[in-house]
C-alpha cells in the first residue's frame, strides 16, 4: 500500500514501478527486469501479460462495450481465446449481463469493475491500482475494494495500491509512506 498526501508523488511512484513512466535517475527493477534503460516499446513488452493496471478515472475505451474493453489487452497480447477469457472475467466482477453495454452507459462503479476485469484478464503477476475508489462513493468503493482483494486471493496476483483511505490501506501487507517525493517509511 502506498500512502501519502495529495501531490506527494504516489501516482508518479506507481507509474514508475509499473513502467508507465520514465525515471530521470535511479534504477527500476520490475519482475527481475531493469526498466531504467528500456524505451517505451521495450517496457511495454516487459508489462505484456504480466502487469495489470487500474486507474482512478477508469480509462476505458469509449464507444466500446464492456466485453470489448476486457478483450482488448488479451488480444493485444496475442491470445486466441480472448472472448472466453473476457466473459469469464466479466462474470467474476458480476457484469456478465452488461457485457454488450457501451461503457459510457455504465455507472461509475460498473465502469471501475470493467476496469478491474480488464486488469485481471491478462492474468498478471502484479497489478497496480491508482486510487481505484477515488471517484466512487463509499459504499461502491467498498464493493470495489472487496472485489479486488477477492480476485487477488483467487489468482495470487501481487497488488500494489495507491490510496489515501486509511481503512483500505490497513488491508495491505506492506505499507509505504511518502511525502514530497521522499520515502518516509516502509513496513
Amino acid at each position, binding site marked *: 500500500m502506498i500512502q501519502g498526501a495529495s501531490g506527494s508523488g504516489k*501516482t*508518479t511512484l506507481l*507509474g514508475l514501478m509499473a513502467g*508507465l*513512466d*520514465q525515471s530521470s535517475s535511479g534504477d527500476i527493477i520490475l519482475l527481475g527486469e531493469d526498466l531504467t534503460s528500456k*524505451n*517505451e*516499446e521495450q517496457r*511495454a*513488452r516487459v*508489462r*505484456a*501479460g504480466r*502487469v495489470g*493496471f487500474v*486507474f482512478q478515472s477508469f*480509462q476505458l*475505451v*469509449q*464507444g*466500446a462495450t464492456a466485453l*470489448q474493453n476486457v*478483450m*482488448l*489487452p488479451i*488480444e*493485444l*497480447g496475442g491470445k486466441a481465446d*480472448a*472472448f472466453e477469457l473476457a466473459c469469464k472475467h466479466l462474470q467474476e466482477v458480476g457484469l456478465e449481463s452488461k457485457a454488450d453495454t*457501451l461503457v*459510457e452507459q455504465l455507472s461509475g462503479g460498473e465502469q471501475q469493475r470493467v476496469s478491474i476485469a*480488464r486488469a485481471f484478464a*491478462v492474468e498478471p503477476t502484479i497489478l497496480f491500482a491508482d486510487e481505484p475508489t477515488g471517484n466512487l462513493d463509499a459504499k461502491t468503493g467498498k464493493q470495489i475494494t472487496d472485489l479486488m482483494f477477492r480476485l487477488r486471493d483467487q489468482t495470487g496476483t501481487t497488488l500494489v495500491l495507491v490510496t489515501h483511505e486509511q481503512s483500505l490501506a490497513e488491508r495491505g501487507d506492506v505499507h509505504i509512506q511518502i511525502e514530497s517525493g521522499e520515502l518516509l517509511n516502509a513496513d
Partner: protein
Amino acid sequence: MLIATIITIAIVTASQLITQRIGLLLDRQASELLAADLVVASSAPLAQSYREKAGAEGLNVATTISMRTAIFIDDEPQLVELKAAGAGYPLRGQLETARDLNAEKQRPKQGPSNGEVWIDTRLSAQLGQSILLGKQSFEANWLLTFEPDRGGSLFNLAPRVLMNLDDLHDTGLIIPGSRVRCRVLFSGSGDQINRFRRWLKPRLQADESIQDIETARPEMRRALERTRSFFALSIILTLVIAMVAIAITASYTAGREAPKVAILRAFGIAQTRLVGFYLREIGKLWIIASLVGIAFGWLSQFPLQWALDGWFGRELPQVDTMQPFLVAALVGLVSLAGFCLPYLLSVIATPPMQVFRPVTSRRSLKRNVLFGVSAIVTVFLVLILLMQSSLLAVVTLGVILVATLMLPVIFGLLIRALLFSGNHRFWLKRYLLSRLRSSTRAAIVVMSGFSLALLAILMIAIVKDELLAAWDTQLPDDIPNYFLINLAREDVPQIRQSLEQQAIASSDPYPLVRTRLAAINGVPVAQIAFADPRASNLVNHTFNVSFSEVLPDDNAIIEGQWIAGENPTNQFSVEQGMAERLAIKIGDVIALSVGAETIEAPVSSIRTVLWENFKPNFYLIANRRLIEHKPQTWLLSARIEDNNKPALKQLLQQFPAITLLDVSILMARIQAIIDRATIALEFFFLFALASAFIVLLAAIQTGKAERQKESALLRALSAQNRQLYSVHVLEFTLMGLLVGFFAALFASLAGWLISVQFFDIDYHFSPTTWIYGLVSATLVLTIAGTMVSRKVYNISPMKILRS
C-alpha cells in the same frame, strides 16, 4: 485560430497582390499588340483636347498616321503600308530591326529618326537605296523585322514602310481627301487608363473608336478572359480552404473554452461580461493576425517574382494601391466574426451543467443550424468583398455549399453503416469502430474539412488542366502559320493542287466579299444606339463576308439552323460575339453594303467561333446565292515549314497576285501569354496546396489530444509499436479513402460545371482526378495523421493519461 486567421489574411493579401501584378503584366503584354494600353483611331486627326487630358492624367501619348501609298524605287512604283510614327512610339513593346535578314536583331528605343525610313523585310532588296516618298527622298537604312502592333490587324497586305511623323508633312502625301488612319496611343497605370477611358467615351466622334486589349483580337481576348477567370476561381477556392481552417479551429477553441466559461458562469460572472471579454480577445487576435498575415502575404510575392521574372523576361509590375491589404484585413475580420462568434456565444449561452455533463438536445441541433447559416453568410460576404458580383463566385459558392451540407451527412451515414455492420472479432477493426463511435463528430469534422480542402484543390487542378489542354489543342504543332489571300476564284483549284503536291496542309478555301454593315431590321446602323461599346468597331469598318454550305471547322451552332439544303433561301449565320455586340437575334434582317449595292437577308443561325485556331473565321457567313456573284477574292490558310519555302516561291511566281500573310508573330504572342499564364496558374496551385495542408493539420489537431490519450491507454495495456501503428495507419487510411472518393466525386461534378459554363472548354472525364483524389488523400492523411500521433510512441503513457 490565430495561425488559421494569419494564413487567411496572408492568402488574401498574397493572392490579391499576385493576381493584380500578373494581371497588370498580362495586360501589358496584350497591350504590346496595340503598342499601347489604349488607342483612339480615326480617319481624321484627333482633337487636341484628348492629348491635353491624357497629359493631365499623367499618361504617355504617341501618334501614328498610316496610309496605303506608293513609293518609288528607281522610278518603279510599289504599293506599301506607310506608317509615320511620332516620338514615344511604341509605348508598349519594342521594335526590332536588322541590317539584313540573317543579321542580329536590334531593339531601338524609338522609331526612325528624321530623314530615314525602315522598310519591311519583303522590301529587303531595296535596303540602302534611296526611296521616294511623295516629294521627299529617304534612305532605307534598316529592315523592320518586328513591329509590336503589326499583328493586331491580320490583313495588312502591303509591305510596311516606317518613317518619322515629323517628315510626313514634307512628303506632301496628305492632301484633303487622303484616306489615312490616325491613331493616338496612350499608356499609363490601370487606374489612369480607366479614368481616361471614362472621360473619353462620351466625347468620341462618330468616326473615332477606342481600341484596347478588350477590343483587340478575339484570340487574345479569350486567352486573357480565361486566365482572369481562372485566377478568380483559384482565389475563391484557396480562400474556402483557409476559411475551413478557421471554422475547424474555432470549433476546437470553443470546445476548449467551454469548461472555463462554465466555471466562470457557475461563479456568477455575467454573460455580458463574458461576451465583452471574448469580443476584446477576438479584436486583439484580429489586429495581430492582420499585421502578421499582411506581412507574410506581402513577403510571399517575392518567391513568385523570383520564379517568374526570369521566364517573363521582365519584372512584375508593382501594385500601387493599399486595396489588397485593406481587403485582406477586412476578410480576416469577417471570417473571425462569422466563424468564431457563433461558437463562443453558444458556449457562453450554454448552462454550465450542460458543459459538465453534456447531453445531446434539440438545442444542439439548432446551434448547428446557426453555425451553418453563419458560415454560409460569412463565406458569401467574403466572396462579395473579393469578387463583387461575379457569377463564377456565386456558382463556386453554391458548389462548396452543397458539398458542405452533404459531406457531413454522407460521412455520418457511412459511420453509422460501419458501426452496424456486424460483430467484429478482429480487435483492430473493433477498436477503430469504437473510436469512430465515441468521436463521430470529430471524425466528421476531420473528413468534411479535409474533403472540402481536397475538393477545392482538385477543382483547381481539373479546371487548370482542362484550360491548359484546351490551349494546347488550340495551338497544335500543325496550326496554320500563313494566310494566302487575294486569290482569284479561278486560280483556287490550281493553287490547292500545287500545295498538295508540295505536301503543304491547307484549309478549305473561302471567298471574301468586302462589305459594310448598313442596317438592321431596316434601321440604318448610324441611327441605332448600341449598348455595347464594342459595336462601333463592327459598324464603322468594312469586314469580309463569306459563303459556305459546310459549317467551318471549330464552329458550332448555338441557336437556329445552319444554312443547309439544295437551294437555301437567302440568310446569314452570325458569330456569337457579333450577335451580342449588335444585339442581333434569329430572324433579324441584316443589310450590307457591297460596293454600290445593298444586300439583305434574315439571320438564320448564331455560331460560336474558335478564333484561336488560326483558320479562316468569319463574323458573317451567307448562303452561296446571296453573294456568289459579288466582287470577291479568296483565301486559305496553310502550314508552311521552312523546307517548303522554295516551293512557295515557285507558287508565288506562278500566281504573282497572291499575298502571303505571316501570322506566326501573332501566334507567338498568344503562345507567350499562355506560357506566362501557365506559370502563374501552377504557382497558384501550389499556394492552394499549401493552404490545404494547413487545413489538414488543423483538422488532425482537433482530435489529437483524444487520439494521444487513447494511444497512451493502449500502451498502458502493453500495446507494441506495430499495434499502435496499425491503429493509426488503418484509421487514417480509411478516412483518406472516404475523403478522396467524395472529394473526387464533387470535384468532377464541379469541374465539369465550371469548365463548360465559365471557361467555355470541353470537359473530359479524367480518371487521374480520382486517382489523385484517392491516392493523395490516403497518403497525405495517413502520413500526416501518423506523424502527428507519433508522439505517443516515445512518451510515457502516464504523462499523457494524467495530463
